[in-house]
């Protein structure tokens, strides 16, 4: 049953109304293409992109979560074939007990494989393992003419593969994919935690030591100013081996059944997260972290997805919603990063989730976000006066340094900025035109940014 529904991103800003169709089999999806109207069609997964990437106002939106079968598991080769609506949560629950983990995990398990490909998501292990698209060995893409193309990363069709990885769903509907999973001995990580006094201290430790860890990420107190600018908690870790587990855990080393502890209730007003409450939270968070702790064993869920314990946590920002701002600044442009953080801290923008991470090499994805450098991400509640102008100024700094913003999180960039941030946009458009000359696959994000 198709239904007109108001859809928004995880940030709950700028919604639009579209006709939502629960995906059926391949023939059903092909049939949809035959009746696409002037407002086009777009796939949507679990709606975790923050802005308008999974919206298509006035058009057709295919809810791909209805396609959630795991098609085959080859444990010897660590390969798994799935439908695009399968979530990382589902994969981890199914495969961790067999010693296979998802190769790349973002801050939530509640994303679909199709969405992970479209946004070419990254995780704490980017500096070692790259982004999600690099672990996709093949994908089936339903393109505008109704054919399904099987694409691989290195074949004659590889330009379309790499235009689809990070292509924000604008090349076609990903219907199936084969992923190379990561072998693990346990469902735990061995984590080292360090407190860093300021930004230089933090960046020094990361530059010096990240290569020794599979996972690395730092939480930054954005409200700390002056000499404490960039004070932070750095957590880095490895997949835990069996010997690293305490004896009591060894018998159920691969158990994985994380529970959802809470559901954020509806009706929380905007403004709950303000400078005062966030300052208090940040202070507590920083003080709670040990000065230094080595080899702590943490479950995968609590290490990677702490927020998944609270369902619908985006409600705590109230009806005005929030935006997530994530930028990449190349190595050698550390001064830019320092200035950006300084501007945020001077403006007192309350962000209780600011994270810094070092990226490794880029992949061939035309619009893929990660590239060598530092990435800073923060949640900001909507409503503070001057927020737009502040972020525009930071964009300018980032652009001047040759950096970029992340499309899966974007909700406010302009078309001209994006064209400068993604120098391969024209090449991507050329590949897209070969399969979708009329722009049948389209989103609110694509319209806003003139992709």
């Amino acid at each position, binding site marked *: 049953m198709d239904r007109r529904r108001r859809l928004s991103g995880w940030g709950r800003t700028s919604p639009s*109304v579209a006709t939502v169709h629960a995906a059926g089999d391949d023939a059903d999806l092909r049939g949809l293409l035959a009746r696409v109207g002037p407002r086009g069609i777009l796939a949507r997964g679990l709606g975790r992109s923050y802005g308008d990437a999974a919206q298509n106002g006035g058009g057709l939106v295919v809810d791909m979560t209805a396609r959630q079968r795991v098609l085959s598991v080859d444990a010897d080769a660590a390969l798994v074939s799935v439908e695009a609506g399968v979530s990382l949560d589902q994969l981890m629950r199914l495969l961790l007990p067999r010693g296979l983990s998802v190769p790349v995990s973002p801050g939530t398990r509640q994303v679909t494989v199709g969405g992970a490909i479209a946004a070419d998501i990254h995780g704490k292990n980017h500096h070692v393992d790259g982004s999600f698209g690099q672990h996709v060995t093949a994908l089936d893409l339903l393109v505008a003419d109704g054919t399904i193309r099987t694409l691989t990363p290195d074949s004659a069709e590889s330009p379309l593969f790499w235009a689809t990885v990070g292509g924000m769903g604008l090349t076609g509907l990903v219907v199936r994919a084969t992923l190379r999973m990561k072998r693990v001995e346990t469902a735990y990580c061995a984590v080292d935690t360090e407190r860093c006094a300021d930004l230089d201290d933090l960046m020094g430790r990361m530059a010096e030591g990240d290569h020794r860890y599979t996972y690395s990420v730092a939480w930054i107190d954005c409200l700390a100013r002056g000499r404490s600018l960039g004070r932070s908690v750095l957590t880095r870790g490895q997949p835990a081996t069996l010997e690293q587990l305490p004896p009591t855990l060894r018998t159920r080393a691969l158990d994985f059944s994380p529970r959802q502890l809470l559901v954020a209730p509806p009706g929380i007003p905007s403004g709950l997260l303000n400078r005062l409450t966030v300052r208090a939270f940040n202070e507590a968070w920083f003080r709670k972290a040990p000065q230094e702790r080595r080899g702590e064993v943490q479950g995968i869920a609590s290490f990677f997805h702490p927020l998944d314990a609270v369902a619908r946590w985006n409600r705590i920002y109230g009806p005005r919603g929030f935006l997530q701002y994530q930028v990449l600044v190349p190595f050698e442009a550390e001064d830019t990063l320092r200035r950006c953080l300084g501007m945020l801290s001077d403006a007192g923008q309350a962000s209780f989730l600011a994270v810094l991470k070092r990226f490794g090499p880029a992949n061939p994805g035309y619009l893929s976000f990660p590239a060598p450098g530092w990435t800073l991400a923060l949640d900001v509640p909507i409503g503070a006066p001057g927020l737009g102008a502040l972020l525009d100024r930071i964009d300018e700094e980032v652009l001047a340094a040759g950096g970029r913003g992340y499309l899966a999180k974007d909700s406010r960039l302009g078309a001209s900025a994006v064209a400068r941030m993604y120098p391969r946009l024209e090449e991507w458009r050329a590949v897209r035109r070969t399969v979708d000359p009329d722009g049948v696959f389209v989103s609110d994000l694509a319209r806003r940014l003139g992709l």
Partner: protein
Amino acid sequence: MKDALGNVQRILVLGGTSEIALATVRALARQRPGVQVVLAARRSDRRATASASLAALGIEVAEVDFEATDRASYERAIGFVFDAGGDVDVVLVAFGLLGDQERAWQDLDAALELAQVGYAAAVGCGVLVAGRLRAQGHGAIVVMSSVAGQRPRRSNFVYGSTKAGLDAFYTGLGVALAEDGVQVVVVRPGFVRSRMTAGLKAPPFALTPDQVAGLITAGLRSGRGTVWAPPAMRWVMLVLRVLPGPLFRRLRI
């Protein structure tokens, strides 16, 4: 497409020389550079001046011919704007006519012209624009009503009657379109110092077009359906609406 901070990309002004509408365009463009606007109005020097004044601010302006007394004209104008170019985020319905209010209740032509421009064309444009915004799945309509529509007064009741009808239509339209992701903002200004009121004596609470524009953009951002300008007018009108007739008439307003 509107962004997370309420910045808009493309605006259509029906009645493209309205001072409140132009001030609203300026206010929206100040939030974020790069705004496109289409001014739909009668071809005139006034339209050219309005267009130039916005272009001078770095706003990308287009003009389209629009005649509120001619159904074919406004159908063509609205169709053209929505068919050519990107999505329209905000439509300002800002054309209107005050005219000579004494003639307006005694002269048939004057009365019917006021009814056509102030009410019939506003309804017609509302129907067309609503259809287009529904098809987009997002957008906002801002319509210029007036406190004059809240209770008829001796001095301007013909004008007030058109605004009363317009106000009722768009208020209902806002409810009808809520499911479609389209916001309708009915603006009820009191006295605004503008071309329309030039020569009239300004009462207390008189606002400038820029002040009204500020209230409109705030209303758009917060998702309100009604904007009183100034906000206190809401309470003034609440009292005036329930005042017994004999008393109201003696107020001579």
